[in-house]
């Protein structure tokens, strides 16, 4: 029975997983570089430009530095959980990549290889599940540090993520009402030839965007690591590569949420709205390449947007954050859902 497995299939998926994981790591690495460069440019500075041409080797140097730093585990922390924290943060950050359709399909050695690791029919919910698990890495790490500032940071992160997940979920319901589907692949396919979902759900996208900022712990919602109040937030006690994992996880989360936003609202690997690209008569491999490039262009824009917002808006206060989440976004998301449902009901009559 064991031999009945399609070994080529396993190999193909394994290669895809390797590419996706390595790809998101590299992109996260260069996102740190981009963050510093964008910050510098927005503030009339130059940014890293010493390591390699234009400072392109800077992330490599940073990574090496993190690896060679001394690793400190506080005496009174619980050691296993202290190590588990950053590992979980990294794991949950990478896991989301599994259900994202990176492109249509490529033909290699006479096989059609879909550029998606797993097309499960509850893709959107999977994203939610992984995002809601992401908070464990922060909570466990912060608690295991045995440090008040860390714990405060972890608690803030947890309450923030739980609060904004609600609004995010309700906006998602509105989107699901429009698409009638939970699979991300199906959603992307629906947007291939016609309107992107952003045209149906502009308001929902706005709420989703704000929630994505909160879920990624990005400025203006980065209270979990508010260095003016909490030293370093949840990673106060961390050093060396364990700190690096936390910081990396943040950038991978940013990358993944950019991909999710592009896939759900901006047509995923669709190059242009209203244009049927398949009529151009290009081979499947070229189409896949164009698709990946289109998706990456959208992702790069969103990553830039994340950074642009970070260097524009100051941090929210904790009560303002909670007010925004509970008193503004959730009612707005509910109204959005009801209006969407009403319109769909009216159109189907």
């Amino acid at each position, binding site marked *: 029975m064991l031999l009945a497995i399609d070994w080529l299939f396993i190999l193909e998926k394994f290669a895809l997983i390797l590419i996706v994981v390595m790809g998101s790591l590299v992109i996260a690495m260069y996102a740190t570089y981009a963050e510093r460069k964008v910050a510098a440019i927005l503030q009339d500075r130059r940014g890293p430009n010493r390591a390699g041409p234009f400072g392109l080797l800077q992330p490599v140097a940073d990574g090496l530095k993190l690896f060679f730093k001394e690793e400190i585990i506080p005496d009174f922390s619980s050691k296993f959980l202290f190590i588990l924290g950053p590992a979980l943060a990294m794991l949950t950050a990478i896991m989301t990549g599994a259900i994202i359709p990176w492109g249509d399909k490529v033909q290699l050695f006479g096989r059609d290889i879909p550029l998606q690791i797993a097309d499960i029919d509850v893709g959107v*919910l999977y994203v939610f*599940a992984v995002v809601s698990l992401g908070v*464990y890495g922060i909570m466990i790490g912060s608690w295991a540090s045995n440090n008040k500032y860390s714990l405060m940071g972890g*608690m803030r992160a947890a309450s923030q993520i*739980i609060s904004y*997940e609600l609004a995010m979920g309700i906006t998602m319901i509105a989107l699901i009402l429009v698409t009638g589907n939970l699979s991300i692949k199906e959603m992307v396919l629906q947007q291939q030839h016609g309107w992107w979902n952003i045209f149906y759900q502009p308001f929902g996208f706005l709420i989703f965007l704000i929630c994505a900022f909160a879920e990624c712990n990005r400025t203006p919602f980065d209270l979990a690591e508010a260095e003016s109040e909490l030293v370093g937030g949840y990673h106060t006690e961390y050093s060396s590569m364990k700190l690096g994992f936390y910081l990396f996880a943040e950038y991978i989360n940013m990358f993944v949420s950019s991909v999710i936003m592009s896939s759900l609202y901006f047509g995923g690997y669709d190059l242009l709205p209203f244009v049927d690209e398949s009529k151009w008569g290009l081979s499947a491999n070229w189409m896949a390449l164009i698709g990946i490039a289109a998706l990456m262009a959208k992702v790069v824009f969103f990553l830039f947007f994340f950074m642009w917002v970070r260097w524009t808006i100051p941090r929210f206060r904790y009560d303002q954050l909670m007010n925004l989440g509970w*008193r503004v976004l959730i009612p707005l998301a509910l109204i959005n859902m009801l209006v969407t449902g009403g319109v769909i009901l009216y159109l189907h009559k």
Partner: protein
Amino acid sequence: MGITTIVFFILSAIAVMSAIMMVVSKSPVHSVLWLIAVFFTISGHYILMNAQFLAIVNIIVYAGAIMVLFLFVVMLMNLNVESEPMKNYRIQLAGVVAGGSLMLVLLSALMKTDKLMVQLKDGDVGLIRQLGRVLFNDYLIPFELSSVLFLSAMIGAVVISKRDK
């Protein structure tokens, strides 16, 4: 023995072990973490039954929301072995009796099932389409009632937070 069966037994072993560890471990935070492990293995079982929707929802609701709140409370209270008051002997006995009778009930219910209830790997009851059909045809009124309940709870939370102004 197919690969599904092997995975089933591995998952079951992890689930039972995690459940035991949850009860046995002294630190409440560790208990909560073991419980999360149990939820994950149960989600794994759902996936073995091809019930992806149930698996994901189990993770979102239990591991992702409820256990986060549990962990939140446990961490903030900073419960330790030292700070926990010694339980009364009688209360411990009552706990043992209550837990034992629950196990008896579960065991007897399990003994009565004469046929294989769960279809591994190929079942489609847990898929979202089937589930939606069942929910909106056979159980429409309870489903709607519970969703109204949840909605009113959420709106209630918003209203309560607005009232203190």
